[in-house]
């Protein structure tokens, strides 16, 4: 009796190599539904409308898309979740308003509509800037969805040029309506018999490479910017440097320069004048068109004159814009640094 015990105990794992036939397996379809898990465990799923290009979701984003119009302008769509109420509905709407340089509001007005999606309440927000706030003298429009669910708040935001975003309003509403909100993973009984399969970690996106000039501080990137810096000068003066990359010619050099001239309340120029006034800086095999513009008189909010120092690079059917905007003297003093920065840029 004992012998049987020991014999069987000894070879517990006597599994063998087996050979068998099975019918062909249909590989599971990649669901066109994307889902993401928030910090509090809520799972939100959406279906992106056609025409929205999916982008890698980095940083805070749980989801990221871009929609382009024929002119090459883009509107950016982001999905982000924050714990708890993230400040509340009003605070966040005002945050978006501030981004559009609008005054904050004290109460929910007609720009905010509650929707009911999948048994949850989502506040749909639509705001347009009064003045042009985008490069190129364009107004900006924001479409937003704010969803509060079990311990966290989700933000769905489309922002971009006024007309483009306005044309996407229905698509955005539809996007909100495809949302499915639910709870996270849960099991019961014995140990949770649902271990999620382990996965390989994905590599990070390669950032823009450059040599950071002295005195320039890196800032968080945004939907439009692949590089963003701040320069602080005396007396609290600041200059902002942005690096933007767009496909195609993005409207063309002249149009962009005139857009910047317009921002400084300067009159537009024609192509000849551009050729005469602009510099060319060659660096690393790239040919940058550089313009140095200064406003004639102090403009609105700033009591100082504003200078824009900008470089445009067109290469490989792609356009790069490096632009420094700030107080006249500060920007002037930074010109050498700006050129050095251009030279150090590694354009892919």
């Amino acid at each position, binding site marked *: 009796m004992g012998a049987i015990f020991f014999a069987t105990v000894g070879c517990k794992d006597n599994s063998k190599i087996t050979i068998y036939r099975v019918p062909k397996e249909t590989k*599971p379809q990649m669901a066109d539904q994307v889902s993401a898990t928030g910090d509090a465990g809520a799972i939100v799923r959406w279906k992106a409308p056609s025409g929205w290009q999916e982008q890698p979701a980095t940083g805070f984003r749980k989801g990221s898309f871009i929609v382009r119009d024929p002119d090459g302008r883009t509107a950016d769509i982001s999905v982000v979740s924050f714990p708890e109420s993230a400040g509340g509905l009003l605070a966040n709407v005002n945050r978006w308003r501030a981004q559009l340089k609008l005054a904050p509001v004290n109460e929910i007005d007609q720009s905010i509509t509650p929707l009911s999606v999948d048994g949850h309440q989502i506040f749909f927000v639509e705001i347009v800037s009064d003045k042009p706030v985008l490069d190129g003298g364009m107004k900006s429009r924001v479409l937003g969805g704010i969803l509060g669910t079990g311990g966290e708040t989700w933000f769905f935001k489309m922002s971009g040029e006024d007309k483009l975003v306005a044309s996407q309003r229905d698509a955005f509403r539809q996007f909100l309506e495809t949302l499915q909100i639910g709870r996270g993973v849960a099991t019961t009984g014995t140990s949770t018999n649902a271990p999620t399969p*382990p996965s390989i970690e994905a590599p990070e996106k390669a950032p823009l490479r450059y040599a950071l000039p002295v005195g320039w501080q890196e800032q968080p990137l945004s939907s439009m910017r692949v590089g963003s810096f701040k320069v602080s000068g005396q007396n609290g003066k600041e200059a902002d440097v942005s690096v933007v990359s767009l496909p195609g010619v993005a409207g063309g050099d002249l149009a962009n320069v005139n857009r910047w001239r317009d921002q400084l309340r300067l009159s537009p120029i024609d192509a000849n004048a551009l050729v005469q006034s602009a510099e060319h800086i060659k660096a690393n095999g790239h040919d940058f068109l550089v313009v140095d513009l200064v406003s004639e008189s102090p403009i609105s909010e700033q009591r100082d004159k504003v200078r824009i120092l900008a470089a445009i690079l067109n290469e490989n059917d792609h356009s790069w814009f490096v632009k420094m905007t700030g107080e006249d003297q500060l920007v002037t003093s930074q010109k050498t640094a700006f050129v050095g920065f251009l030279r150090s840029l590694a354009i892919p």
Partner: protein
Amino acid sequence: MFTNTLAQSRAWDFFKQPFRVLSSLRLTVVCLGLAMLLIFFGTLAQVHLGIHAVQARYFQSLFVFWSPPGAGWKIPVLPGGYLLGTVLLINLIAAHAARFQFSRKKAGIILLHFGVILLLIGQLLTGLMAQESQLRLDEGETRAYSEAPRETELAVIDVTNPDYDQVVAIPERFLTRASTIQQPTLPFTLKIRRFLPNSQLVMRGQDSSASSSEATNGVGVNIAVSEIPRTVKDDERDLVSVFVEVESMEGALGTWLLANAISDPQSFTCSGRTFELVVRQRRFYKQFALTLLNFTHDRYAGTDIPKNFSSRVRLVDLERNENRDVLISMNDPLRYRGYTFYQSGFDNDDKTSILQVVKNPAMIIPYVACALVALGLVTQFSMHLFGFIRKRNA
């Protein structure tokens, strides 16, 4: 009576002393005490080792070993579950042989002990013969196999034929050591170059310090692998990875990295046939398939406390001409062809149902044993009780 005749034989004298020990009540008490110690320490150990490791080490073993940290040697400190169970079994049987007469007065105790014997045997058989696996089904998905949650296999799949796949499934234990596997149906040999019971996989490029990969083909070329300690948490799974070199008549075809985290099979051709390699959870194919039609999960109003969950599945068995819908819910499993499917859990926001699949031929034994024990207990104690009352009233 039995022992008296035996006592007369000369050979008996030799066995008398050990037999007396084996059949003594003292041994029973000692064994029960040791069993209590084993269970107590086993329970404490679960906090750090997890229930499966403890089961294997404490209860499905002959001895429980202990080694000082860092030392290579180990000493047995407690008898393990199997050893204790065997000794108790022998003790019980010997005690009955030595002392008990089959009288009506002892009927209760005999029944009781016989039930205990049966219970112990049943648990041993269960430990040896039962097969537990899991079936994860998304809504709408059909599967004809279940998976072992903690065991992997290397599957070599011949996908040449358009109508079917021919699978050679190599269980994990063949992969743990560097060895060569040759199967008559395969025109190549598989050399296991390295096996990692739990590992971490990272895309190369981030980790520039790592040397070039041991893999020469497939996705493994771009992946850096490092070994990490095995997990002890019940709800985590080890990431098994293995480097396999394929060698055919023409020479080495290459080395692949296979892991259960790499779910897509990697393929190559040899002798005009196409093969796929994949490491996955060990599959147990069945002659029937289940499709999850719908999973429902009710909660108590305004809470997250689960009230009940159930899966509506379709059972299709071409061999036996079965095609019917079944509802599997908590406390109401599906029993079919020796397998029992229990509603175990759910995932994916109520879109995936997890069923526990159990095949245990010894399943009926505990019920019989329990019935016997219950009968014995009730008989014995009611006899005592009535005797007691009668005496008090006398």
